[in-house]
């Protein structure tokens, strides 16, 4: 086998701290990057981009963001949809107000604005935790959607109440609107996903991440050994909302193009992203990818297998998807609260000793 864990000795702490300490994992990571950046853009078409790749990339950013808050810092949030809406509307206002500024900057500023809003709605976490905090963030969800529905300034007084993504380009290449080529929107999202994943990994591997996890595992002990709970929780809310805001901006501007806030960024969206994090694995960056991939792929696979191959009625297939996701959530919560990421780790551990049980 090519996959060897033995014989990979580390002689420095830098080498020991690598994201992929095993050589094979490292090469596989480079290979994935090479395929994602170097090959897929050339073979991509509109169907693949819209049905699979764009939603996967964008949801993965949202899942990374939520995972930082829920999985690393232990603060339950049901406000993801609302925060994505903040990113989307911030991006829309910026795009229409400053048409000449690069989309990169718009998306980043939209993320920053969402971070500020996230911190604001994260303040209750200093006093309350668990279910009660979940309810407080639920209030954020409903308030934000209501706000974007009711205040016409946010949708530039358009008659429909919708926001529509105007055509914008980056370095002369159109990336928003109906004329944007699939490869350009794909690459744009991919760049943001890579950026988010690297930043999230860097933050969670060091002192910031350890103070988040300390708060998650035992907040009183964390405070007594010197973690400032205010700082830890507020940075978690800020970083998490930053990523969620970016994903909201991309979801609106590049993926959908037109958004009606209650429909797109409702409570349903909050649950979808939370399910991704739970199924993928709490407290794992890889888990965010796995969960996003799983929930994006599932409907497509069901449609191909159920409706196209077996000829089932489409409404049954659609309902079947709900049943399967629901069952999986229950199964994961009971059997493996750390999700697909943990299953992957356990499988590797078992394979290491296979065929011996111990």
């Amino acid at each position, binding site marked *: 086998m090519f996959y060897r864990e033995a014989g990979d000795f580390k002689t*420095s*702490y*830098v080498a020991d*701290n690598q994201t992929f300490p095993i050589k094979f994992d490292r090469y596989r990571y480079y290979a994935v990057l090479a395929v994602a950046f170097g090959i897929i853009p050339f073979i991509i078409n509109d169907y693949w981009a819209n049905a699979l790749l764009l939603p996967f990339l964008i949801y993965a950013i949202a899942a990374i963001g939520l995972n930082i808050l829920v999985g690393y810092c232990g603060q339950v949030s049901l406000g993801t949809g609302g925060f994505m809406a903040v990113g989307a509307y911030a991006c829309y206002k910026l795009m229409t107000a400053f048409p000449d500024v690069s989309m990169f900057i718009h998306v980043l500023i939209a993320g920053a604005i969402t971070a500020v809003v996230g911190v604001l709605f994260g303040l209750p976490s200093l006093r309350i935790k668990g279910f009660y905090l979940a309810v407080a963030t639920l209030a954020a969800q409903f308030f934000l959607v209501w706000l974007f529905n009711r205040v016409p300034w946010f949708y530039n007084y358009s008659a429909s109440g919708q926001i529509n993504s105007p055509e914008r380009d980056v370095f002369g290449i159109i990336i928003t609107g109906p004329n944007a080529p699939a490869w350009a929107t794909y690459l744009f999202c991919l760049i943001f996903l890579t950026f988010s994943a690297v*930043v999230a990994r*860097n*933050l969670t*591997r*060091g*002192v*910031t991440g*350890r*103070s988040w*996890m*300390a708060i*998650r*595992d*035992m907040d*009183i*002990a*964390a*405070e*007594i*050994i*010197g*973690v*400032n*709970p205010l700082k830890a929780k507020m*940075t978690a809310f800020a*970083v998490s909302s930053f990523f969620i805001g970016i994903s909201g901006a991309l979801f609106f501007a590049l993926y959908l193009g037109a958004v009606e806030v209650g429909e797109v960024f409702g409570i349903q969206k909050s649950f979808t992203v939370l399910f991704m994090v739970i199924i993928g694995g709490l*407290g794992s960056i890889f888990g965010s990818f796995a969960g996003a991939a799983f929930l994006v792929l599932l409907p497509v696979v069901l449609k191909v297998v159920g409706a196209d191959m077996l000829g089932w009625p489409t409404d049954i297939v659609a309902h079947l998807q709900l049943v399967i996701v629901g069952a999986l959530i229950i199964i994961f919560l009971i059997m493996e609260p750390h999700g697909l990421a943990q299953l992957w780790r356990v499988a590797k551990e078992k394979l290491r000793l296979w065929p011996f049980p111990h």
Partner: protein
Amino acid sequence: MLDQTEDGYITVDGRKIGGVVMEMKNITLRFGGVVAIKDISFDIREGEIRAIIGPNGAGKSSMLNVISGFYNPQEGEVWYHGKPRPRMKPFQVAQQGIARTFQNIALFEGMSVLDNVMTGRLNKMDGSLWKQAIWKGAAEREEVENREKAEQIIDFLEIQAIRKTPVSRLPYGLKKRVELARALVAEPKLLLLDEPMAGMNVEEKEDMSRFILDVNDEFGTTIALIEHDMGVVMDLSDRVVVMDYGKKIGDGTPDEVRNNQEVIDAYLGVAHD
């Protein structure tokens, strides 16, 4: 009898103890109508091992919680390095160089041993969000520097073999040791140990006692500890405070305390005739 002077004394085994690090002045702590600590004063001197003993419910843990800033006493003052300490949050107390372990282990179960120990370095690290996000450069350098310190403590406490193990998989005795490592790695000026040997067998107790003596000897750390095992307390500590029902009933060297009639009464009970 100790040769006790203004700025220190010489212990029985010949160690030189310095001036007062922390002084509790007339501390009273109430929970509603319950008086947990009643008008207690004592001091902790630099480099000594100071034990707080007493029967169950005597208020020992409450005393430790007052020192570590978890409880604020209603009356009295905590003097630290010659100055009265203002009311502060526990994490601010930690930043002043006071580290502690807990009676019921309070490790971060979701993290590895190494991460737990590294969390103890928190106050020595800058932790700026921007530097952390970029990682390469300042954050990575800082991480490596602190990792070296953490590895020294890991070596010192002989837990090298388990550094990558998740804490939740460790047996009780090792968890206690990891918790000690997490406190030690902060290079505390004052180390508080809340029943470091509770629930251990003789062998583990001997190991732990050796580590506590080594810590005091090698790093010169001032240690205040609560312990129930009298043999251990009498062997380890330089001076002992005895508490009963929230009051101080004895204070002095182990020998003085052992012969104190009030202490004997508290532990053995008084015959009523």
